[in-house]
């Protein structure tokens, strides 16, 4: 029943789209029917292009996400808990934060060229800010009594940092990471528009030049589905790794 409830709106949407596209009310080449998009998708799967593109995009995405997240969490915990670090870094971070991450891509290309490092850096840069901000707020808002309790039980600051401050900040870190994942999907697409020879963004870009709207839509559907799947898997993974998070939210 749950699957049906989730699938029903998508199936109805596809059906209406198919009918409109075939009716002749709209240009079939501009709005290809879902059946044509599925055929185009099958074509890219059979030729092996989709797998190559996905592999390239996922690798960039993963490296950028890991780099941006680890830096964001580490810096966020430090700025959230240590005043001198916050005083030193927060004004700098706040200066860069309002920048739209896509705006730095031309600069990144000048610095790193058009290779992989430029794309990974752009994704990591964009992921860093939401992860840092959420971690910073999470670490700042830990109830004082929780820290006092911990300080009566251990004198090890490292132990308090790892076993108390990190998990206490985790609900907001998770929120930051979910935003980071969504932003990473935007950035991988934008980064692949410039100087890529494979990847989902590159596929969309070349299909556009070849006026293959069906292939563009197929690639967009894959990108969208990948984003949704990544978010779902992340949420499931977090619940599995930290079951208390789900219990505390009840």
């Amino acid at each position, binding site marked *: 029943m749950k699957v049906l409830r989730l699938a029903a709106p998508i199936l109805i949407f596809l059906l209406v789209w198919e009918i409109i596209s075939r009716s002749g009310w709209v240009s079939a080449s501009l709005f290809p029917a879902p059946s044509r998009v599925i055929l185009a998708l099958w074509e890219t799967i059979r030729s092996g292009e989709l797998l190559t593109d996905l592999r390239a995009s996922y690798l960039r995405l993963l490296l950028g996400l890991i780099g941006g997240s680890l830096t964001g969490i580490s810096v966020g915990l430090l700025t959230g808990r240590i005043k001198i670090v916050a005083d030193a870094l927060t004004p700098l971070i706040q200066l860069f934060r309002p920048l739209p991450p896509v705006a730095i891509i031309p600069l990144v290309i000048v610095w790193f060229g058009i290779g992989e490092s430029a794309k990974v850096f752009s994704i990591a840069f964009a992921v860093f800010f939401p992860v840092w901000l959420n971690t910073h707020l999470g670490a700042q808002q830990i109830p004082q*009594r929780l820290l006092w*309790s911990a300080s*009566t*039980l251990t004198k090890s600051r490292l132990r308090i940092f790892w076993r108390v401050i990190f998990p206490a900040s985790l609900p907001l870190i998770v929120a930051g990471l979910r935003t980071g994942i969504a932003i990473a999907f935007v950035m991988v697409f934008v980064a692949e528009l410039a100087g890529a020879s494979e990847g989902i963004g590159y596929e969309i870009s070349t299909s556009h030049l070849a006026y293959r709207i069906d292939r563009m839509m197929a690639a967009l559907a894959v990108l969208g589905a990948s984003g949704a799947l990544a978010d779902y898997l992340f949420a499931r993974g977090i619940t599995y790794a930290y079951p*208390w998070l789900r*219990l*505390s939210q009840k």
Partner: protein
Amino acid sequence: MRTMQIAVKNLSVSYGELCVLRGIDLEVFRGEFISLVGTSGSGKTTMVNALARFIPADGEINIPGKVGVVFQDYSVFPWMTVYENIAFGLQNGKRSKIAEIVGQHLKLVGLEDRADRYPAQLSGGQAQRVGIARALAPDPDVILMDEPYGALDRDTRERMQKWLLDVWNEDHKTVVFITHDIEEAIFLSDRVLVLNGGRISGEYNIPFDRPRDEDVKFTTEFIALKKEILDRMRLNS
């Protein structure tokens, strides 16, 4: 000869212009259970925070040995299981020794079958017992309890009072118990101190023999003492 466990001289705490504790002198003997009662804003919580050295204070605080603290809220870590909460303060020592101590304390608080549960899966009373077990496990010399039963319903609260007395009877730790409930203070303590306006305004030795049971609360002597302390609190507020 009784040994002094807590010696406080001329303790004062101010938050800016606001003076919360004013020159408090306090002596508590080893193994003594004392309660501090007072109305809201009388300085009870500040007293615990100062004794635990969580906040800066003027005057002398001398508490040799380890101090354990139990709070009303946030006393247990929601991301740790019951077992992990109790084991948190036991990082020094062999794993088997830690498991033994945790096992003893799980038994003491009657939560052997809840060791793998998270605090969100426990009732309020059970969660607070975990907080108390966690404070007791590192074998502190003094336990400070800041309204530990404040968030519990009356029935659970009374069961927890009886349970705490049973636990205390096991090893007679020195306890400083903060509450606004006079009945609770008399039932649990050897001595009750009334805190008002940042000063200790009354001190009462509790004459009831231990072990106590709840019937003592209905004796004329208990009720008279409760009234006397209540009058003292009101007189000063």
